[in-house]
């Protein structure tokens, strides 16, 4: 039998993480970029006070965190906020989204506040939780009234061929990705095995218990 040559290594130390991140991204990297890359490894350890958003304002971070928590709340497992979904969304907006799509997302956030103002006279975060939830249900219904959009294209803005994706669909997909790929989402909410070791094609669902994270 061949053993895992690294041992059962599921965590990596910071120096090794830096080396890999640098290799991963092609060698020459500015220190802040590497730091950003390591956000995934670090998120759990950095308190919110020491973490600074790069695409969102503090107020927008709070808005995103509150909406994400409504989409995937704390139940018998932690919710979106505890999993750091707002940090993931900030990182994606800062590093992955083209400027036009970032702007579209920020405009979507502003529209949420505007809608809240029209219905209750307050910004979203000042609304009672039940009113917040009610507004998000309206947004959800509206977003899914439009024709279905294939997954992973929902982050893209409209092109000449296809209309823009409703903001709330983008928000929802980002929330789901951020949550279920987090350590909390993958290992506590879902079932995760980094090295399954074997494949069984037909087992009772109860044996795995939950959706596979990957």
């Amino acid at each position: 039998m061949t053993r895992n040559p690294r041992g059962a290594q599921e965590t990596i130390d910071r120096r090794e993480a830096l080396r890999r991140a640098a290799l991963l991204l092609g060698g020459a990297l500015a220190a802040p970029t590497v730091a950003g890359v390591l956000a995934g490894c670090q998120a759990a350890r950095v308190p919110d006070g020491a973490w600074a958003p790069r695409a969102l304002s503090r107020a927008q971070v709070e808005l995103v965190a509150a909406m994400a928590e409504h989409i995937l709340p704390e139940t018998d497992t932690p919710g979106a906020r505890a999993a750091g979904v707002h940090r993931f969304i900030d990182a994606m907006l800062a590093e992955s989204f083209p400027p036009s799509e970032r702007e579209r997302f920020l405009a979507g956030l502003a529209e949420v506040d505007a809608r809240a103002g029209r219905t209750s006279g307050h910004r979203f975060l000042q609304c009672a939780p039940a009113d917040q939830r009610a507004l998000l249900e309206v947004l959800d219904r509206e977003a899914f009234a439009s024709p279905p959009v294939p997954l992973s294209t929902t982050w893209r803005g409209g092109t000449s061929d296809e209309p823009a994706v409703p903001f709330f669909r983008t928000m929802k997909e980002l929330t789901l990705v951020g949550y279920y790929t987090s350590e909390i989402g993958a290992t506590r909410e879902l079932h995760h095995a980094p090295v399954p070791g074997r494949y069984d094609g037909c087992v009772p669902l109860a044996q795995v218990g939950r959706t596979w994270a990957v």
Partner: protein
Amino acid sequence: MTPHDEPYDAIVVGSGITGGWAAKELCEKGLKTLVLERGRHVEHGRDYVTEWLQPWQLPHRGRGEQELYDRDYPIQSKNYAFGEATRHFFVNDREHPYITAEDQPFRWIRGYQLGGRSLIWGRLCWRWSDLDFEANLRDGHGVDWPIRYKDLAPWYAHVERFVGVSGERLGLAHLPDGDFLPPWEMNCAEHVVRRGIERAFPGRHMTITRVANLTEPHNGRGRCQARNQCARGCSYGGYFSSLSATLPAAQKTGNLTIVTDAIVHSVIYDERKDRAVGVHVIDRNTKQTLDYAGRLIFLCASSLGTAQILLNSKTPRFPTGLANSSGELGHNLMDHISKAGASGTVPGLEDKYVYGRRPTGTYIPRFRNLGGNREAKVAFLRGYGIQGGAARAGWSRGAEIRGLGAELKQQLREPGPWQLTLQGYGECLPRHENYVDLDSERKDEWGIPLLRVHCAWSDNERAILEDVKTQSAEMLDAAGCKDVETYDHDGPPGFSVHEMGTARMGRDPKTSVLNAHNQTHDVPNLFVTDGACMASSSCVNPSLTYMALTARAVDHAVSELKRRNL
């Protein structure tokens, strides 16, 4: 320009799936062998830098940076294996340009590193049969293959025994069985669909793929751990690659020298000796040039890479490219047409699931134009096979449905319905008008003329794809699937990463570049054993055939060398 060193017995250009095989076979036969790789060095295990990263440790959770992809990886990022965890094994398109017409795209997927695309390949391994080797002769497209199945069968067995191919024996004449490790399991839903298809369509089969993922330890390599992340690299050696298998075997002989960052500009041809005497190399980093001398030259640089090198090796005797007296060099480019099929939901089985992540899927072998007298007549030549697989929908389905809050979270905690997708891979006809050539003005960073690719599907390939869609949907319907829908992503040539044919084998030096032993008709000590050598494309994944042809060609070359015929 004369080579300045003591010549190597053999020079192998490229370290991908065929370069690795050429190196292993040459070294094991005692030849001092130099492998030249244009990309960087990659150390098996140590340089699989993302192998142990969990989803939350990937910079963007695997979703990557869209802006970067649009700028630097517009072509590579379209490949199914490309992603944040594998990007470093794909070329930067901006730094490695090639030319296509605006209305005639070609997706050239490349991995410039030691091991080449063997690190990121799909790993399916099928033997060809005489249905394939006789296809050109039968319908008159392309030139007749100079070999038949019996010529290659022992070499298929030779490479399968070393690679470790898992699979199910089917006893089909047109998809010959080989030396297999135990097959991967089909899952519950696939079994249901298999029974449905085989009941409704006698003569059609659904099987698990034959795949180079080890279901048990093999030749010192560990068994596949069912992670399904092969393209990140695998320290266990659970799948076959040059780095896990052939190069270490070559290294063990003491006869192997590897030089990375060595871009082969051209092959050096000595008119007086009428032999290839070496290669002209440019260092990728310093751009310094260097010549290496060798008695045998094996080009294993990929179908398009090899064509580019030969086209760029112009001499007074070969003004249009070395070994191109036929004028066929660069021509007859093929790929497999794919990215279309059907999908559906398999009802029931809600209390069943899978354990682990199987690194492969199912396969429906070709059932069209097999030559049976009761077969349905179809309006196209040749045929297709259908890859597929079933899985229960995961958490990502939540982004496509309404709902939020604790109810949504609870719903996604359990897997969704079983969904099965079929995707056809159709044979592409060899056509002279699909070709590559060199641009007369534009050059890359290393001064090598850019490759121009001119390639389009013909009506035959499009007709195949229409039949794929219809038949896939009918089979899913017959198997009791619900919500059956066809799809067609209209992939341009290159999409299947099975590009081949640019220096085809043949019987006649006037119409082909290579003979029955992958030896150029024009230059006896110059061999081409990558996909460039293919005279037709079959409909099955080609890598195993490239490997078998390489091993066979080395055997011939070395015996000719010993007889002093080269």
